[in-house]
């Protein structure tokens, strides 16, 4: 399996940090290396939104079990948040941590692409 993934679970602290939003970027990196902070931006609970969330959830359980938090932001309810993360398309998955920030847009149906996009698998893909 991917080597980059191997190094991730070495610290198992702070597993459930999903409630902390906004300030996470200022946390020291060494303490949060094992924490994956993910945000999924959607606009309404459309079939595409739901599909994206399910795809993401499944993928995280498989590859980042216990190390991630997913925050779903519905832009129809909180339109102001679209500017901060520069959201144009929906669904957009934003990897806020670990840095650098990564974005993946679409319904996340292609697991390989998502893994590459999240740096969980090197580009080019081993399969």
């Amino acid at each position, binding site marked *: 399996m991917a080597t980059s993934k191997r190094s991730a679970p070495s610290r198992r602290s702070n597993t459930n940090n999903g409630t902390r939003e906004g300030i996470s970027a200022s946390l020291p990196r060494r303490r949060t290396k094992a924490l994956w902070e993910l945000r999924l931006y959607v606009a309404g609970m459309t079939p595409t939104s739901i599909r994206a969330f399910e795809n993401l959830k499944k993928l995280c359980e498989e590859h980042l079990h216990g190390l991630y938090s997913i925050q779903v932001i519905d832009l129809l309810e909180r339109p102001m948040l679209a500017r901060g993360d520069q959201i144009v*398309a929906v669904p957009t998955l934003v990897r806020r941590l670990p840095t650098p920030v990564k974005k993946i847009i679409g319904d996340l149906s292609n697991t390989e692409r998502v893994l590459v996009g999240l740096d969980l698998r090197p580009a080019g893909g081993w399969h």
Partner: protein
Amino acid sequence: MNGLEKVPTGIRGLDQVTHGGLPKGRTALVCGGPGTGKTLLGLEFLVRGAELYNEPGVCVAFEETVQELTTNMASLGHNLNSLVKARKLAIDYVEIERKQIEETGEYNLDGLFVRLKQAIDAVKARRVLLDTAELLFLGLKNEAIVRSELRRLFHWLKDAGVTAMMTAESGEKSLTRHGLEEYVADCVIVLDHRVTEQISTRRLRVVKYRGSSHGTNEYPFLMESDGIAVMPITSAGLSHGASTETISSGVAGLDEMLGRQGFFRGSSILITGTAGTGKSSFGASFASASCGRGERALYFSFEESPHQILRNMSSVGLELSRWINKGLLKIHSSRPTTAGLEAHLAQMYKDVEDFQPDVVVIDPITNLIAVGDQGSVKGMLTRLIDFLKMKNITALFTNLIFGDEMEERAIGISSLMDGWLVLRDLPNGAERIRTLNLLKCRGMSHDMRMHSFTLGEKGITINGNFQTIGAVKA
């Protein structure tokens, strides 16, 4: 009349060219190459809307940050920050960095829609600028989605009832690089920035305006410290009225030669002469006399700076600075080579529109002739003269000629003029004598004889009929 409702842009000249403005509730496309002024035109549309028509605006900027836009607009004398603070303008910088974006599966651009809606609601916007939405094509890989989403966007804007402007980069085969004109077909404006012989001219053309008549020419436009101005310069034809009112030439003796009256108001007078014959003095006397009557005079100098003119004219007894202080006289100096003929013409139009003078002096037109060929110079002068006549502005043009070529050079333009005064500098024994000669003055009986004159502390003095001239050159 057609049923198409229009929204005045408030951009000087553009509403004339479009016969009233942009189509209301539609999206107009502004395309042009890099550096043609698309963004600034779009922003000016928003700023003028907010300032003049109380129509707040939203700018969705894909290319430049809020800070960059603010700086750029400051150079046109607009303060975006204060409009934003007054909630008359909202700017949303949309950054799409392809490098940090991975795509997988279906998506749409609702994120953009949400942001646009939020911004529109925040300021109750009536106008929207999308600058340049085609960057979506660069940022996103799935072109089919971008296209269908753009189509949806234009419908959405229409439903929102806002009047929008979208900028786009010119393409090689089509109007825009990504064929956006396909979606926005109601009104298409093309901007152009051409450099001919190192001299640049910005031009604007309305290539399409569905359901409306519009000016089809290319019009020069200016980006000035007080905003953008499009110059709807067309030949106004010969429909202008003809005044019977006369105004003084500023020189008593010359008025006498003109039957004690002076020039007709709204007429165009040409003064030709070799170097140092006193052309500028006549121009300045004319301007000064107008100011003395409380009228406004605009003096375009293509040779001297305002300070030079003030200094030189005080030597012939003309204290022009008092008129400047009273706001009746404005001297506008520029080098002819700083801009093309069109740009100069546009600049003069704008200055005339801004200052609203009663008389105009252009000193000399010779230097302008140097920037263009004969045909375009004549075209330009025709348009300028028509424009001034329509405004009933009396204009005095000086023209420098060289020795023997004499009138030949002036002949092309003299036909456009109502009056023609020729100044000469003739040798007479050991000295030279200044002479003047009214070659023509339409609609007025005038003294055709040659007169001598002197330039002194009391200004120009005409010494009566000068008959004994020995060495007049043919």
